[in-house]
């Protein structure tokens, strides 16, 4: 599955982009931008998970379930076991969300289209209700998370950023490897015609289930990293339906052409929001919404389609 993965153009571009980002942010760009990159890359993982589902025409309106689950897994492990190691935090978030995704996958894999979207929304709101009611889970106040450590050492935000970039590269490469495999190629086939895929001898439900678990893992990891980099979790900014909506919005904004697209989209979103908040504290939501609307109107293929046009990148691949 991973053979020749580093010769893949998308992977090469991804790695170059991330390295450039790291170098720029540590040498040239001001400190605050690093925060935006960190949030953007973390959230980008969840977008990557949604993009994966989208390739099979499945839109989840409840991915904040896994995003929040990962974040709360990190928070609870700190509260009860004192775990602050960033490697453990990431692993716990991914595994916790993966297990939840595996269980719910048995139900969700049977549904398509609006039913899939609404059912996933319902599950996420169940978690939201639990978290908002439970006082020992911090209720609507949430919990604060102490700065991460690495193998017992204190971790500066600079190194946290490098580590997040590293996690993102690993995750994105794994996804690219999956997309190049037979199972990955099946996804677009399922989108075209499920019955035909079944006749070819593959189980559509199984393929979707695997994809769903992967997507849950990514969203969980995203939540875990977000919690670690922000230092706070609460149900309204991690699990509520508008968080799911935001994720779907960034997915549409990014476009689904490439594994790099979600990260660029999420970073741009962070910057739009930062400036909207600064310029118009009373109408920031209108600015964010307006920008997203404009992108959908003028670039229906998302930001990635613009990049493709500018660099003429997608064409060569199609010819091949």
């Amino acid at each position, binding site marked *: 599955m991973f053979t020749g993965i580093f010769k893949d153009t998308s992977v090469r571009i991804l790695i170059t982009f991330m390295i450039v980002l790291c170098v720029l942010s540590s040498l040239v760009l*001001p*400190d*605050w931008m690093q*925060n935006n990159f960190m*949030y953007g890359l973390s959230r980008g993982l969840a977008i990557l998970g949604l993009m994966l589902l989208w390739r099979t025409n499945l839109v989840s309106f409840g991915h904040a379930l896994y995003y929040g689950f990962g974040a709360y897994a990190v928070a609870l492990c700190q509260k009860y076991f004192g775990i602050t190691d960033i490697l453990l935090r990431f692993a716990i978030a991914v595994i916790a969300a993966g297990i939840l995704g595996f269980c719910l996958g048995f139900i969700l894999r049977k549904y398509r289209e609006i039913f899939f979207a609404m059912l996933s929304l319902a599950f996420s709101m169940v978690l939201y209700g639990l978290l*908002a*009611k439970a*006082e020992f889970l911090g*209720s*609507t*106040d*949430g919990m*604060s998370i*102490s*700065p991460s450590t690495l193998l017992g050492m204190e971790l500066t935000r600079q190194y946290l950023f490098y580590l997040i970039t590293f996690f993102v590269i690993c995750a994105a490469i794994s996804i690219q490897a999956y997309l190049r495999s037979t199972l990955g190629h099946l996804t677009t086939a399922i989108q075209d015609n499920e019955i035909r895929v079944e006749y070819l001898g593959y189980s559509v439900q199984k393929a979707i289930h695997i994809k769903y678990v992967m997507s849950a893992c990514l969203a969980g990891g995203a939540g875990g990293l977000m919690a670690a980099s*922000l*230092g*706070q*979790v*609460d149900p*309204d*900014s*991690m699990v509520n339906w508008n968080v799911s909506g935001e994720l779907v919005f960034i997915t549409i904004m990014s476009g689904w052409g490439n594994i790099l697209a979600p990260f660029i989209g999420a970073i741009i979103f962070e910057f739009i929001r*930062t400036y909207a*908040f*600064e310029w118009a*504290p*009373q*109408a*920031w*939501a209108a600015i964010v919404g307006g920008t997203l609307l404009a992108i959908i109107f003028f670039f229906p293929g998302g930001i990635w389609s613009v990049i493709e046009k500018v660099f003429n990148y997608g064409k060569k691949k199609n010819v091949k």
Partner: protein
Amino acid sequence: MEIKIFNKTTKIASASMLVASCLFAGAAMAKDSVKVGVVSFLTGPAAGVFGVPAKQGAQIVIDAINNGTMPAPYNTQGFAGAKMNPVFSDESGGGTKQVGLFRDFVEKQKVDAMIGYISSGNCMAIGPIADELKMLTVFSTCGTPRLYEEKLRSHVFRTQANAVGDSLAAARYIVDMYPNEKNYTGINQNYAWGQDSYKFFELGMKQMSPDSKGSDKPQFPKLFVGQYGTEISALSLDKAKVVHSSFWNGDIEAFTLQAMVRGFFQKKIFVSSVGGSAVDALGKKFPDGIVMGTRGNVGLLARDNKDPLNLWFIGEYKKRFNALPLGPSYQYARSILAYKFAMDKAMKKAGKFPTQDQVIAAMKNIKFKSFTETISMARGGGHQAVHSVGYGLTKYNKKGKTPGAEKVKMYGPECIYPPAGTKSEDWINAGMPGAKCK
């Protein structure tokens, strides 16, 4: 050649001089102004009766201090001589979002201090981050006692006393005014502020009126829900006559309107610890005879206070915004006063423009003159203010066409707060030793 070299040298010299002068100018500039982030709800259900009046209160005091037009004892211009350049920002969106914005304020906008925050949830989220980023932060309104009882904070101050006093004063008022009512219940928002408020009201009632009994069905709806039909039914069926509530923002207005039409307030003794702002918003529609608090001697309960600083504040507020200042207006303005007080004090001690550490050292344990009383930062290691808290019965003033209050009782800080270093819950359970009530 020589001339050329000379030219080059002069160029370099003049360029470096220019750079140097810019640097000096920059250093001088920093002493001319301080940049401060002022955060309150500017959108959403808490903006109208909380966030916007809070911002307006801060604006009046900041402008007056910048221009040197504030009455004594704040009649010197500026904050340690520097003008304040406030950056107003929105508090809505939850703690996690606010933490992100706080980082932006510190690292991107490079503010000198942060002032504000209304929601207890946000304060709990910002507290640890402010210490981590070493940013002087003055909380204005939020009330959860957990902020300092969980941990002492190095960079965080709060000029508003915590929920313990609001709840204990409410219990005292009930015991003083309605000694025969022994059953009570509550409706509070399900988050730090609401949970703490009801908990301390209950603990206080148990101590002050040992044969009283709390209902086993107190209501805890979610914050910002706005629909209370079922809760009103449940409370109406409950035999407890006293109903405690720490509702604030649009929730208290919504609750009042929905409960009013069902005759709720005729049947119950409703105790509202922060509802003062809704009284003004609803005007003459607001029912009379509700036990109302404003979290201190501010807002509705301070309308008749003749302190010159208070009269000035009310006058300026009316002139500029054509409205009366509400509780949050006072609370934010008070934080600005505390900041000025500490800046000036630190400047005096240091003999030059103070560093952040000097301001923090100066702010600890201060006693500063506020609009209606002198407030001391006597708890939480010198970081947490205590002040008196009052309750009264709402009474619409038909002649002046303004909302007002009657039978107001003020409880001093020695009566409703534990001594420094004692946890509130332990102190109340021990029978509130040393409490001095008039």
